[in-house]
């Protein structure tokens, strides 16, 4: 049998109140092992209090070739940002 352990992506929450952040990847045969390996590899120095692992092949990623159509149309929608609107100076907090 010549099959390698699949690749997993590891997400760690470093403390409550923060989101899980991508920390890196590792190899594991199953989800349980991925979780244990992630604990041993990525939280040796108290880096985390919660871990997600997901098999890399299950992640659908956008293609940078489509970046133009995906992300550039947002560039001219300045009215989505508060600085677009002009208000009198007397109005201090809004």
């Amino acid at each position, binding site marked *: *049998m010549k*099959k*390698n*352990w699949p*690749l997993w992506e590891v997400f760690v929450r470093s403390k409550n109140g923060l989101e899980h952040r991508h920390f*890196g*990847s*590792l*190899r594991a*045969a*199953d989800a349980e*092992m991925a979780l244990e390996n992630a604990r041993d*590899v990525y939280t*040796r*120095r108290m880096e985390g209090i919660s871990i997600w692992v997901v098999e890399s092949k299950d992640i659908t*990623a956008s*293609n*940078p*070739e489509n970046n133009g159509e995906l992300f550039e149309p947002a560039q001219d929608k300045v009215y989505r940002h508060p600085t677009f609107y002009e208000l009198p100076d007397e109005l201090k907090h809004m």
Partner: protein
Amino acid sequence: MSEKEIKNLEEIFEARIARDEKIEPKDWMPEKYRKTHIRQISQHAHSEIVGMLPEGNWITRAPSLRRKAALLAKVQDEAGHGLYLYSACETLGISREEMYEQLHTGKAKYSSIFNYPTLTWADMGAIGWLVDGAAIINQVPLCNTSYGPYARAMIRVCKEESFHQRQGFESLLTLCKGTPDQKNMAQDALNRWWWPSLMMFGPTDDESTHTEQSMKWKLKRKTNDELRQQFVDQTVPQAEILGITIPDPDLKWNEERGHYDFGKINWDEFWQVVKGHGPCNKQRIKDRVSAWEKGAWVRDAAIAYAEKQEKRNQEERKAS
């Protein structure tokens, strides 16, 4: 793609790097960029895991529990660093197994320093102080390198590595403050590790083939000779604190240059070790290959178990 189109893409690509933009895995990149990065990152990863062996050699013989724990933690970090780097490299379309294959067949290189033997306990201190010291100088600039996954791996590596050099120096300092036997042991270690450490920065600038391209891609910020000089300048005063002598009669402060002058490196020895004829090349590869082959049934078993579990889960879902 036509040649012209590729040329155009390459220009855009180089301009992005020049603007300090990071390149990410799925971005278009010149084939040469991909290949150079695979070579350098995998070499770097191999160095970490081959580097576990000379130090691992002393874990069972560490002289105190405190030192044993520190050494274990350090060698463990190296495994971790190898893992981060292999993962970074995998984003370029090569698998860890393929990289292992290259290492095991001698196709891929790793840092030559790990082909020297660790003969006494003082070697653990010397490696931490000199080898990790040199590695840090090489690595810190890489935290800013152009390839995103490599830069991120290096940030993590550098953060963790900061204790390695300190533990090495502290351990040597203890020897130097100890009995004559201990101090001799420290001096002997410095004698053996000094020159190989200088070789870690690679051939001199006029001999080095990749420098210009590597600078452009931010795989390098300074030349080999500049980094080597930086290492000598920072290490000499540290040796003075330890009270041991660097084995180089030509080493002296050059007021005019504002740097230390140092003696000629034995490049014949360097190339000999690079080509596989160092004291421990065969042993290191043999150990890596043996670990990998002996582990095959374990890795296969885990896959077989995972497949069985998956099947059971599916059946359960069907039944419910």
